[in-house]
């Protein structure tokens, strides 16, 4: 490696395009959006600096706060369902695919398929399957003798959010599955054999050998799920529209942001309040990522192998 005094032209040429595009279309908009969240109409006309007023309004005013906290709560539920269903199912599937089973590649390909399809398809296909007019969900439940349990799942306030979360899980489960699989394949066979020779059964091998070794992947999947969920929008919008019905019961941060920014029905769009919602999303996501970086990862380093 050469020591250089003047910044060499060729290095600048290599770096410039990426740094330029990234700065102009990602970092700058992010900063300008945060700046916009500190502005609003001021008394006396025009737009001016109002400090954190937009955030205070968002979190406390009668008009904004209930909607914000509703979206936040729903988003937490959305995330918890992904953590409790998507990631354990993905892990179970990965462990099964990693056992010496025939046609594992075929299963893997099929199970990953929904992740390749657009949310519009996933959302609408399920909307039709669950539509009482078509009656698919009824005939299937009825087949198992559970016909009485059928509900218009997406139309009821109590069930719509859980249903949409599960549709999202159905669509995305392939991604954590592949990440877990990648970690599982890397575990040396000798390690597993050694445990088996010592008399460990399948569960013990999983619990005491495989699980500790794929902990880093579990943590990464958790943080990716967190970021993805608190940034989600497409599925809810495609299935329920920007009003996130019924009665805002499926409203999450992404749809709330969209409505605030672009307006809906009689309420006009508001770039400053929209930017404030995005600012809150930024804060939430940043908190999650920092928790991961400083908490999880430090603990993880010790069990690197």
């Amino acid at each position: 490696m050469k020591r250089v005094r003047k910044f060499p032209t060729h290095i600048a040429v290599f770096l410039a395009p990426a740094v330029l595009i990234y700065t102009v279309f990602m970092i700058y908009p992010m900063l300008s959006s945060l700046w916009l969240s500190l502005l609003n109409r001021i008394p006396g006309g025009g737009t001016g600096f109002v400090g954190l007023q937009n955030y205070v309004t968002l979190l406390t005013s009668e008009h904004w706060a209930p909607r914000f906290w509703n979206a936040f709560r729903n988003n937490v539920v959305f995330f918890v369902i992904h953590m409790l269903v998507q990631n354990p199912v993905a892990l179970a599937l990965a462990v099964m695919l990693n056992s010496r089973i025939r046609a594992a590649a075929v299963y893997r390909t099929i199970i990953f398929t929904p992740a390749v399809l657009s949310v519009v398809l996933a959302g609408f296909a399920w909307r039709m399957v669950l539509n009482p007019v078509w009656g698919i969900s009824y005939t299937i439940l009825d087949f198992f003798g559970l016909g009485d349990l059928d509900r218009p799942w997406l139309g009821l306030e109590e069930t719509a959010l859980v249903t949409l979360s599960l549709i999202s899980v159905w669509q995305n489960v392939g991604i954590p599955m592949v990440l877990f699989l990648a970690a599982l394949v890397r575990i040396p066979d000798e390690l597993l054999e050694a445990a088996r020779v010592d008399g460990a059964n399948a569960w013990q091998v999983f619990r005491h050998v495989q699980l500790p070794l794929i902990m880093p992947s579990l943590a990464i999947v958790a943080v990716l799920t967190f970021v993805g969920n608190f940034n989600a929008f497409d599925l809810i919008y495609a299935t329920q529209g920007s009003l996130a019905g019924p009665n805002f019961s499926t409203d999450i941060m992404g749809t709330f942001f969209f409505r605030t920014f672009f307006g809906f029905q009689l309420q006009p769009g508001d770039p400053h309040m929209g930017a404030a919602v995005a600012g809150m999303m930024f804060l939430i996501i940043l908190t999650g990522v920092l928790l991961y970086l400083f908490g999880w990862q430090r603990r993880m380093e010790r069990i690197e192998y």
Partner: protein
Amino acid sequence: MALATATRPRIVGERKWTWWRGALVHGALLAYSALAIFPVLLVVVNSFKARRAIFADPYSLPTAETFDLVGYRTLAQHANFPLYFLNSLIVTVGSLFLILLVSSMAAHALAEYQFRGNTLLSLYLAIGIMVPIRLGTVGLLELMSKLKLVDTLWALILVYTAQGIPLAVFVLTQHMRQLPRELKDAARIDGASEYHVFRLILPLARPALGTVAAISLLPIWNDLWFALILAPSERTKTVILGTQVFLGQFVNDWNAVLAALSLSIVPAVVLYVIFSRQLIRGLMAGSIK
């Protein structure tokens, strides 16, 4: 390296597989596979049936009597799907090309040269791995209207490129650090310029470029958010947005809706059938790095 371990052949060990345990695993995987493709098959199969048959007998394949393309005819009359496909293709290929080009250049610089600010720049570029670009939407829309890029495909290409750069640079830098020095030094001794050296080693980064393409492709092709916000005009609609708008207008025309959904998955499914191995391996390799 990661690719090699991911496809390592498994040695048949002395593990005792009781037949019922194998059956159990096959049963579980089979059941989940069915769940994964059931809604998709249901949509596709019924898109070829007459309206009455969709409701009377949703689980059967179309027969001579029930076969009907009315949904596809409605689609052809009311939505410009060939144009949507072309737009999606231009945006996806354009963004992928730009991501691979500019990220490999930057990754080469970060991996090859020691210069002041190298680590800092790597960290700066890594911010975007975790912070989603959507959070800058308000600023982005303002910027795009100042640049008069709203309702152009360029707006989408530039945003998707910016979105793809952080992870691409990260994965490519890791890979390029492992490339052998001898080749580069030999070329330098022969009088090659630094640009020549880059051109020389780019083919060696092909596996990592494949990984990056695999990781970047789906979020671009399937994105609804920016298509909706930055380029919603009829001329610039992507397949995803075009389908979404069409579904909204024809929500009660089941034939048309099923046809639109079926048609919108054709490119994704065709590509997936061809590239599924590369795609999944690419994701696996990318996750290890």
